[in-house]
């Protein structure tokens, strides 16, 4: 027997120290009863937004872990250029990008189809973002040209891996029809495998992914709407990653777990009270000012917790390009609130019926606001309805006050246009989310969009914020950051600082250590 053979025999006979292979299945717990629509152009709820980002790509993307406009990098497009007036943009696609399953290679036809779909309000929930698009055309199988009616502050922002920027398979959409929303086909690192309603969504690794096969083989996206159940499942090791609570108590307790890492990251979702300036009694500026003075933002911050929230200073989120806190926003003053109410003829207080969601986190925030306004004599009579019904009813202009939480691409134009431009007023053909019927700064918002001088553009956005606050179309309340928890051995593959999909982006590099 040779030495080599003897060693081999010994190796087979002697017990070896156990070396566990790294796990390749990621189990995620999400605060949802079920998924809604996995068609990325309709994925507007947090549970849907978080998961579609793992299945789709866009022409460009935020560098994983970031949502800074300065970190936009190539994704399905290798390169791009624009005309001197920035109205014509040409994108050159990567070659050899494969869709999931048997849906073949991505071509310019799919990109044109996807962007036209995003711009069509019958086939997309984000068509408003594409209002400035004139033409989207395929020059050749790997080149797409976009022509704009007017320049927009950040075209790349609209085309990132968020909302309408996701590229779908034309063949799959046409073949699957409505079923596409429950079993979508993209080019991302993970592909739809199965969906068990009210239980879980299963994803398999897309081995032909153009950035290389993912290190994880499978993702199980489990629906656990109860915070307590999700916490217990994580503590028991049944989950590797879970949607957390935007609450200081939760963060502090979870951080004590040595096997857990709490990720608190951007964007801050801005919560505002949108006041319908056309409806009684809110058509009286004194009543709106009374509400603004009654709101106690420092108290809200203390309640939510400093680690997961921050105090806003304007009607657009902190960190948006163009944000300014120098705008004359009324600060908490109960005496002034009461005096204004008395002046407006409501010395004995007033009651306003408000439609609000059952969603525990938003309902809790609203209850704090309700108590704050009550101290000034303003009673909010909450009509609490199911979350989808709430979205439907507030878009039907049925609530004079709308509490709304949102994060958008961090350039002032998007938020200002969607929430405060008269074109976006609810119940109009071009409606987006202008619940207040605000029209205080239309001219500035429009002028800033096409302003080539960056300084002038910033100044216009700041004037717009001042005018909206002077009219009190909305009262800022609080900004809450995203909070998730993961097992200490789960490595995203990048530092997580922000994610516009409102959840950690799981990429081909994500793995267990």
């Amino acid at each position, binding site marked *: 027997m040779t030495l080599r053979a003897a060693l081999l025999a010994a190796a087979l006979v002697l017990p070896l120290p156990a070396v566990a292979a790294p796990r390749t299945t990621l189990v995620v717990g999400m605060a949802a009863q079920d998924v809604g629509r996995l068609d990325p152009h309709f994925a507007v709820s947090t549970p849907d937004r978080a998961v579609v980002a793992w299945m789709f790509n866009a022409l460009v993307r935020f560098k994983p872990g970031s949502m800074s406009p300065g970190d936009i990098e190539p994704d399905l497009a290798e390169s791009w250029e624009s005309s001197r007036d920035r109205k014509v943009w040409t994108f050159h696609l990567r070659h050899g990008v494969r869709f999931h399953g048997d849906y073949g290679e991505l071509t310019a036809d799919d990109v044109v189809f996807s962007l036209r779909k995003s711009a069509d309000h019958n086939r997309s929930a984000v068509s408003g973002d594409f209002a400035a698009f004139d033409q989207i055309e395929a020059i050749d199988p790997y080149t797409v040209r976009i022509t704009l009616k007017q320049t927009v502050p950040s075209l790349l922002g609209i085309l990132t891996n968020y909302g309408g920027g996701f590229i779908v398979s034309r063949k799959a959409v046409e073949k699957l029809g409505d079923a596409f929303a429950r079993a979508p086909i993209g080019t991302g690192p993970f592909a739809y495998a199965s969906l068990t309603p009210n239980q879980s969504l299963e994803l398999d690794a897309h081995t032909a992914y153009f950035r290389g096969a993912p290190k994880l083989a499978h993702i199980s996206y489990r629906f656990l709407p*109860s*915070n*307590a159940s999700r*916490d*217990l499942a994580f503590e028991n090791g049944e989950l590797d990653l879970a949607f957390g609570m935007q609450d200081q*108590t*939760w963060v502090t*307790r979870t951080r004590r777990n040595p096997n857990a890492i709490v990720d608190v990251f951007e964007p801050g979702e801005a919560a505002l009270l949108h006041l319908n300036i056309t409806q009684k009694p809110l058509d009286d500026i004194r009543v709106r000012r009374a509400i603004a003075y009654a709101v106690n933002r420092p*108290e809200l911050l*203390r*309640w939510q917790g400093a680690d997961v929230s921050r105090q806003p200073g304007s009607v657009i989120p902190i960190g948006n390009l163009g944000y300014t806190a120098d705008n004359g926003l009324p600060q908490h003053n109960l005496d002034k609130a009461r005096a204004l109410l008395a002046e407006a003829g409501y010395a004995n207080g007033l009651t306003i019926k408000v439609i609000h969601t*059952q969603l*525990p986190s938003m*309902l*809790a925030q609203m*209850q*704090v606001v*309700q*108590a704050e306004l*009550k101290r000034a004599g303003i009673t909010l*009579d*909450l*009509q*609490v*309805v199911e979350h989808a019904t709430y979205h439907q009813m507030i878009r039907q202009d049925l609530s004079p006050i709308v509490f709304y939480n949102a994060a958008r691409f961090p350039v002032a134009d998007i938020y200002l246009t969607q929430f405060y431009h008269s074109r976006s007023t609810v119940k109009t053909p071009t409606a987006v989310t202008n619940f207040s019927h605000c029209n205080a700064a239309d001219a500035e918002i429009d002028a800033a969009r096409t302003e080539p001088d960056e300084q002038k553009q910033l100044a216009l956005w700041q004037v717009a914020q001042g005018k909206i606050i002077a009219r009190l179309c909305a009262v800022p309340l609080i900004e809450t950051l995203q909070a998730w928890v993961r097992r200490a051995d789960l490595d995203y593959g990048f530092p997580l600082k922000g994610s516009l999909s409102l959840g950690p982006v799981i990429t081909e590099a994500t793995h267990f250590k």
Partner: protein
Amino acid sequence: MRFIRAMLRNPTTSVGVVLCIVVVLGALLAPWLSPHDPAEQSILDRLQPPGGEFLLGTDTFGRDVLARILWGARISLVIAVTSISAAILIGGSIGMVSGYAGGRFDLLVMQVMDVMLSFPSLILGLIVVALLGPALLNLVIAIALTAIAPFARIARAPVLSLKQRAFVEAGRALGFSHARVLFVHILPNILSEVLVMGSLWMATAVRTEASLSFIGLGVKPPTPTWGGMMRDGFENILDAPWLSIWPGLAILVLVLGLNMVGDGLRDATDPKLAGT
């Protein structure tokens, strides 16, 4: 008096009566017993454990749990009493008229009642509240609707035998109207049975209200309800378990008390158990 004495001789019933009296007194005296306003938030005092200034602790908004339980008892009792009274009135009348009239009318009415009985009370309540919206009056309507069919059945059965009795036939022979025969001569003879069931159904009403509030279909915030408190507390079960435990115990005490009283009433009115 003999009836009440017979009832209270049963120690279980006495305990039930005491439990119910405690809850009723707590609800009636809530404005004086509550150490704090049940709706007033104190963010600095959020999630305080039981003890000290807050005997039963505070919730996530810094509201006093004891105050909310005392005020919540009012909601539970108001809903239980009004919904079951309405059910007795409507269901009892339907059952009496149906049994008295007999024939096809009786058949039709009882089939409708059977359909209503086929729905579990929580499901029927859930459908009604989902359709009408969560509000105090709608909760009363929902719970009353779930209890109408059982009371119709309970009232009808004795009427079927009573209407054959000589005193009823004598009344008819004297030319009394049907309404007079029903409500003056028959009603007093079935009232005790209906009231016994009423006390037992009050416990069901308390449970149904708590269940609907627990799933978010209860009275609007910030009105305190025991079911709503349990639901809110469940969100913080790992950090502040008392938020769910105290309202849960309150529901247990009231439901237990009402069931004990109901059982005692039933035993006291049952001739087979008389003298035992």
